[in-house]
């Protein structure tokens, strides 16, 4: 399958499904080291995103779909994740603006732009035990796949696998940003909910392409 507008719609619809199914898992993760609402917040946001997908004009580019998603996330998620994911999707949209079909390198640009947007907005870096760790790992593995000559869909799968690993890597990290940082040492051994939601979203992107 090609990474066109149909794919972009399928991605977000699938992400909405997955976030919905796993929202209590995300709440539980957030209850351990945050305030227990990450699943609620993301689910609220993606329900809004799903509803908005129909509004996207026919003949739109993938970037238009991503921009619509960004706006909906900003206006409906709230909390820390809302502005962060909103910025991520806005920057991702800009990075592939107008492209009718995404190339392998577009996938890298998209994830990299999202990563930089989150880093700037949240003043967080990889290793701070946040969603940044998932995005950063995704970008790394995507780059590797491009270097290995993989096609766009393969690169997307690589990114998803990277995000999964990046999320897992947060278990042992000491938190430096977000609510978890209030707990310090007490947060070690727990996985960051935002990193997990990132892994869910990128996994949906890959599955939507296969």
């Amino acid at each position, binding site marked *: 399958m090609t990474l066109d507008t149909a794919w972009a719609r399928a991605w977000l619809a699938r992400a909405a499904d997955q976030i919905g199914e796993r929202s209590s898992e995300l709440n539980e993760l957030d*209850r351990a080291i*945050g*305030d227990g*609402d990450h699943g*609620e917040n993301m689910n609220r946001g993606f329900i809004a995103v799903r509803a908005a997908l129909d509004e996207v004009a026919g003949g739109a580019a993938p970037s238009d779909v991503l921009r619509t998603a960004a706006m909906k996330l900003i206006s409906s998620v*709230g909390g820390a994740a*809302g502005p962060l994911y909103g910025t991520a999707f806005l920057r991702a949209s800009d990075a592939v603006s107008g492209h009718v079909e995404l190339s392998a390198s577009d996938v890298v640009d998209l994830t990299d732009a999202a990563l930089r947007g989150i880093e700037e907005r949240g003043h967080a870096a990889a290793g701070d035990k946040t969603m940044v760790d998932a995005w950063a790992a995704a970008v790394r593995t995507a780059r590797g796949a491009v270097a290995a000559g993989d096609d766009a869909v393969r690169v997307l799968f690589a990114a998803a696998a990277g995000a999964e690993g990046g999320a897992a890597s947060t278990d042992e990290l000491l938190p*430096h940003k977000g609510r978890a940082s209030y707990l310090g040492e007490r947060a070690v051994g727990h996985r960051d909910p935002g990193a997990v939601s990132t892994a869910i979203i990128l996994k949906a992107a890959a599955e939507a392409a296969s």
Partner: protein
Amino acid sequence: MKKLMNDPRSFVAESLAGFARAHGDLVRVSTAPTYVVRSKLVPGKVGIVSGGGSGHEPLHAGFVGRGMLDAAVPGEVFTSPTPDPILAATRAVDQGSGVLYLVKNYTGDVLNFETAAEFAAAEGILVRTVVIDDDVAVQNSEFTAGRRGVAGTVLIEKIVGAAAERGDGIDELEALTRRLVASARSMGVAIGAPTVPHSGKQSFELGADEIEFGIGIHGERGRARAPMASADELADRVLEAVLHDLPREPGERVVVLVNGMGATPVAELYVVYRRVAERLDASGVRIARSLVGSYVTSLDMAGFSVTLLTVDDELLGLWDAPVHTAALSWGV
């Protein structure tokens, strides 16, 4: 722990509906987007807006009214509101003299108010933001999200609101707020965990003789778990942490707030206040004013926090100035 609620998803909206009905003389409540605005705005006055996740009632909606806030923007429980309602509230209160945002220091609140401020600026509304971070339980370092904004917020909202009512301009108000933030310190203890409506589970499990020391107001666990102790011991430890961190001269005057976390009866808060007052006497700190009650809560968490705010005659004058809101009312 049971709750008086219907569908958890409608908890905030239904609670606000009841609030609107009970206080129609003081406020108007907008839904979609959700914000609470003072019913009688003062022409030309700088607008004072605060907000954040719900679950801290009476903060912030209970402090909208004469001499305090012009608008409050409540999000879902423990979730910062999105930029849209903040922007709508900003438009609603702007009198052309600018709008001051009072934001508790949480990543979500800071980012959403920041975004709203950008949108407002784009519409030509002058917006200033001051972030409140009075909680000494968290270290202020680049290895944390920074100190949290907790119960000190109510003292700051009262005094800044009085200054705005007096007619101060946005520059003075911003400077005053920064000065207040620098002069306020708080610390809290939980003896019982809160239950978030949508999860129905307690935010943390406490043993029969355990407490959480240095908690915030979102059901997050505190700095450390500790064995339950007498009210005096708890008061001493909390006060010591606050005093340790409070910038002050000898013989400083303070406003003291002994704040209940939501499920603690006022009779217990007075037991704590009694001890706090005795200890302050002993340490040569003079109590200029005091407030004892549940003003900045964490759903149905049991426990208390102690806030000290150092004050001078001007600040005391502003503290004593008339205030007429649902949760704080005097001089009117």
